[in-house]
């Protein structure tokens, strides 16, 4: 373990980076292939191998180059795209349409996603039941598995879930990278409190109406997953809201601001994850001895988690999603992954190695299914 303070580079030699990749290679092999690879289907074999080697190559590059966000974002964006592809393709295969029907609601067959969690807490406590037309166990995206996955990721990664685990976050993360420089630089960061207001609003309205109001009326990602069939004025208004919010907060604003505006200004789950940052073992730290106060990190942060005053004081706010973008922009390695209780500026590489293993493992395994499914489908389509 290193204890040095100034400019410890996270870069490693080729051999050392390879050595650090080996455990990830073995664990992901076990988890992605289930330990007993089945090579009988060529399309699936190719899909699994490409996913497995691709993931491990990116993990190797994180260690070798010392850059985190650059390689994380590749998987994160692919995760978002392939998850939408998987959902839409499944729906089209099963229902011939991207919208769900009344029968799916009657039979409780709607796939569950973590964005429902903020709305199900109050009714679960008071009525001892879940207000969502999904399946508790078994089937695609069942409620129990999704809650367990989210809970574990949130306890360990905190808001890191929003940069390493959420299958929606990759959308606005991806769009925020399309321009090299932002067109709009000045946005009030007070908007970052907005998700707490949305959280309160949807938790209360869902409890009062017993309807997951965010899913029904607001969620921008309905535009790229599944939504209610447009059959009347109400469902047309809903579809309009979904598409406008997706176009505005997930596409347009991230492109012009280079910030993750949907995640920062709307998502109620982001608000819960933000609060969970207070208990997680991993945090971002600022080594004030190494920091030259150039504030490049403040400009690069897509989540409005850094302020100039905070940097001067050596603090990172709870809005941090541990994406590592600020680290990649800091030539002094002054801002770094840290462990709660461990003083800033110490054990930098140890903390980064441990955090990368934990967060990357979650992302790699969680994202592997939709990636494999998409590659498999594309292979079948081409050959």
């Amino acid at each position: 373990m290193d204890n040095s303070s100034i400019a410890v580079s996270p870069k490693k030699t080729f051999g050392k980076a390879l050595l650090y990749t080996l455990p990830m290679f073995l664990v992901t092999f076990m988890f992605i292939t289930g330990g007993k690879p089945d090579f009988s289907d060529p399309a699936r074999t190719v899909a699994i191998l490409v996913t497995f080697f691709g993931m491990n190559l990116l993990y190797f590059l994180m260690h070798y180059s010392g850059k985190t966000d650059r390689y994380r974002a590749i998987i994160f964006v692919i995760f978002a795209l392939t998850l939408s592809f998987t959902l839409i393709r499944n729906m089209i295969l099963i229902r011939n349409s991207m919208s769900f029907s009344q029968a799916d609601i009657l039979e409780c067959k709607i796939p569950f996603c973590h964005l429902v969690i903020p709305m199900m807490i109050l009714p679960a406590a008071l009525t001892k039941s879940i207000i969502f037309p999904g399946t508790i166990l078994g089937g695609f995206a069942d409620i129990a598995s999704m809650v367990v996955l989210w809970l574990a990721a949130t306890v360990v990664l905190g808001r890191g879930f929003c940069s390493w685990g959420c299958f929606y976050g990759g959308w606005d993360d991806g769009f925020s990278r399309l321009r090299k420089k932002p067109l709009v630089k000045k946005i009030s960061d007070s908007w970052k409190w907005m998700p707490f207001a949305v959280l309160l609003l949807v938790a209360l309205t869902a409890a009062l109406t017993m309807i997951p109001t965010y899913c029904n009326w607001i969620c921008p990602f309905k535009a790229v997953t599944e939504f209610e069939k447009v059959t009347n004025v109400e469902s047309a208004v809903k579809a309009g809201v979904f598409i406008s919010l997706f176009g505005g907060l997930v596409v347009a604003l991230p492109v012009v601001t280079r910030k993750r505006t949907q995640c920062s200004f709307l998502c109620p789950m982001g608000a819960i994850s933000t609060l969970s940052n207070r208990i997680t073992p991993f945090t971002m730290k600022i080594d004030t001895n190494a920091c030259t106060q150039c504030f490049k990190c403040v400009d690069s942060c897509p989540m409005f988690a850094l302020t100039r005053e905070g940097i001067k004081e050596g603090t990172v706010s709870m809005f941090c999603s541990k994406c590592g973008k600020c680290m990649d922009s800091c030539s002094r390695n002054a801002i770094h992954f840290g462990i709660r209780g461990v003083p800033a500026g110490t054990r930098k590489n140890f903390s980064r190695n441990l955090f990368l293993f934990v967060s990357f493992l979650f992302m790699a395994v969680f994202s592997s299914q939709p990636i494999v499914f998409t590659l498999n489908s594309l292979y079948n389509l081409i050959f």
Partner: protein
Amino acid sequence: MNKIKTTAGITWAFLGLILMIILFPGLSGFSKSFGTLPFMKINPRYSGGEVAFTQSAGACTLAVHKPVFNGLVRDRNTGFVQVDWRGKIPDQIRDTIDYDNDNVPDFVIAVDTKKPASDCCPLSGRVTGLGISSRTSFGWAARINLRKTP
């Protein structure tokens, strides 16, 4: 003090590492245990509620669910009763339902499964009309809107 904090922090981080390593292989077991918690059941507003009674006619079974009125803390004045036809459903369905079993018919429901079209004729002041009516994987299901007090 610093040493204690550092040790506690690193221990917490390693516990996180262990949790991540066991999470995926143990997911189905963890989910099963989680799924048995008392609040892990679908609210009757979505599941349609428990089946109150069934009637068979040939290869088709009619299931009438218990009426659903539940709200957050107490029952609401409005709700619904779900009726399912399971198995081999006929092209034309017409059933008179007494959902509360008081020997007084509450509504007549007619479904043309081919068209498809559905109609509900209330016979009681508590029945307010047809809610959802749709083909399902098991046959056909309909929800008839109710109010508690006529």
